[in-house]
């Protein structure tokens, strides 16, 4: 996104909004990740405590999701940069 046509008051306002959204996005991602890893890892309800196997699964699920998101984010940022380049330098 291009904010070059925003004056400084608008940029300050937008920065505040983006910071708030980042917090909300993080909380939503957290909540979503709990649901996803719980669903994949917990299938035995004969006990109310996580087994060590389930706990390991939860840890791997969380770590893997973060790495997955980071990789998707990196590829996404690259393709956005390419698209912006192509728009500015039509051949």
């Amino acid at each position, binding site marked *: 996104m291009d904010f070059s046509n925003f004056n400084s008051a608008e940029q300050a306002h937008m920065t505040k*909004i983006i910071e708030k959204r980042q917090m909300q*996005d993080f909380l939503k991602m957290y909540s979503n990740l709990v649901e996803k890893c*719980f669903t994949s890892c917990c299938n035995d309800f004969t006990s109310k405590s996580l087994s060590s196997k389930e706990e390991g699964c939860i840890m791997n699920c969380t770590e893997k999701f*973060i790495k997955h998101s980071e990789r998707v*984010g990196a590829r996404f*940022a690259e393709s956005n940069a390419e698209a912006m380049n192509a728009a500015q330098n039509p051949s």
Partner: protein
Amino acid sequence: MSFLGRGPGSTPAGGVNMEKIELAVTELDTVTDFFNRMVSSCHAKCISTRYAEEDLNKGESVCIDRCVAKYNQVQKKVGEKLQSRGAANAGATAATFGSL
């Protein structure tokens, strides 16, 4: 929600600290989202979808209790992991707006 701070109510004269209210609302929405996902996940794990009866049977009831306990533990474990990873910025906002 993001624009609360700009309402007339944010003036100290009104006696209402909008920052405080806004934080409480974010907490409320977060707890609600968490709870709704717990309801939905434990429904998927514990409730038979044949719907032959309208009461929870014994097995379903016990399953729900354990499911809530496990779900809370998962929330704690995932939270600790995220905190140790400092993963607050893994989202789209960071990927797109890192340079503002």
